C-alpha cells in the first residue's frame, strides 16, 4: 500500500512535471517542472530500492544539469515567452500526436501481449554474478558492478567528460571577423524549379 501511494504521488509528479516541461510558455517554468520530474524519478528510484541512484539523480540532475540550464537561460536572456498555442509548421502537432499515440500504442501492445504481467517478457536470465542482494548496501553493489563488469565503461566516461570540457571551451570562444548571416533560403521547392533540366 505504501508503494502504491508512493508510486501514485511520484508518478503524478513525474508526469505533471513532464507535461509542465512541454507546455510551459516560460523556459524557466519548464526548467522548474523538469526539476519536479527529476525529483519524482528519484522517489521512484527509492521506491525500487536504488538508493544510490536516487541520490545521484538529485545531485547530478537537479543540482548540476538543471542549474546549468537555468544559468544559460539567464545568461542569454532567452526567458521570453514562447507562444505554445500556435504552431508555425503545418501538421506538426497532428503528427506529433500520432507519434505520441503510436509510441504509447506500442507500449500498450507490449503490455497487452504480456497480459499486464511484465515478467512474462522480461525474460532475462536472473542475474547470477551481480545479483541484487537485499543484505548488501546498494552503494556497495553498484560500486562492485562499476569496478568489475563495467570498469571499461567507467573508464570510458573519462573520455566523454574530456570531450565535454573541450567542447565547452571551444564553443565559448568569441570568434573574430564573423561571416555575414546568409540570406534566408527560398522555399526549396521553388529553388528546384530554376535548375536546368537534364538527363
Amino acid at each position, binding site marked *: 500500500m505504501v508503494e502504491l501511494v508512493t508510486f501514485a504521488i511520484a508518478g503524478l509528479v513525474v508526469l505533471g512535471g513532464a507535461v509542465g516541461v*512541454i507546455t510551459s510558455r516560460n523556459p524557466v517554468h519548464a526548467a522548474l517542472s523538469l526539476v519536479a520530474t527529476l525529483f519524482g524519478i528519484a522517489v*521512484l528510484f527509492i521506491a525500487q530500492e536504488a538508493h544510490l*541512484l536516487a541520490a545521484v539523480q538529485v545531485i547530478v540532475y537537479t543540482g548540476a544539469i538543471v542549474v546549468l540550464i537555468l544559468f544559460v537561460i539567464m545568461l542569454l536572456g*532567452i526567458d521570453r515567452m514562447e507562444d505554445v498555442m500556435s504552431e508555425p509548421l503545418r501538421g506538426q502537432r497532428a503528427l506529433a500526436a500520432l507519434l*505520441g499515440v503510436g509510441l504509447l500504442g506500442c507500449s500498450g501492445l507490449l503490455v497487452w501481449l504480456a497480459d499486464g504481467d511484465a515478467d512474462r517478457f522480461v525474460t532475462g536470465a536472473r*542475474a547470477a554474478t551481480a545479483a541484487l542482494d537485499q543484505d548488501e548496501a546498494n552503494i556497495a553493489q553498484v560500486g562492485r558492478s562499476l569496478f568489475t563488469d563495467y570498469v571499461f565503461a567507467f573508464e570510458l566516461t573519462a573520455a566523454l567528460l574530456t570531450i565535454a570540457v573541450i567542447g565547452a571551451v571551444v564553443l*565559448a570562444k*568569441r570568434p573574430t571577423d564573423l561571416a555575414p548571416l546568409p540570406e534566408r533560403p527560398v522555399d526549396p521547392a521553388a529553388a528546384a524549379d530554376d535548375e536546368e533540366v537534364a538527363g
Partner: protein
Amino acid sequence: MDLHVTHAWYLVLGALLFTLGAVGVVVRRNPLVMLMCVELMLNAVNLTFVTFSRMLGDVGGQTIVFFVLVVAAAEVVVGLGITVALLRRLPGATADDVSYLRG
C-alpha cells in the same frame, strides 16, 4: 481490491514519460526546452533500467543508469555550448529560426 503496484506500472510510466519527452522535442521551439525534453526521455529510460534491474535482481541496470547520467551531463554541456554559440549570433532565436540549411 488489492491494488498492487506491479513492475508493469513503472514500465508504463516510463513509456509515458518517454513519449511525453519525444512529443516535447517535436512540439517545442525553444532550444533549451527541447534539451529538457531530451532529458525527460533519458529519465524515462533510467526509470525503465532501474525497474528491469529490480525485476531481474541484477544490479547492472542501476550501474547503467549511472553511465546514462554521465552521458546526459556531457550532452547537456555540449548542447548548451552549441546553443549559446548559436544564440549569440541569433539572439532570441527559436529552433525554427535556425533553418538556413535546407533543401
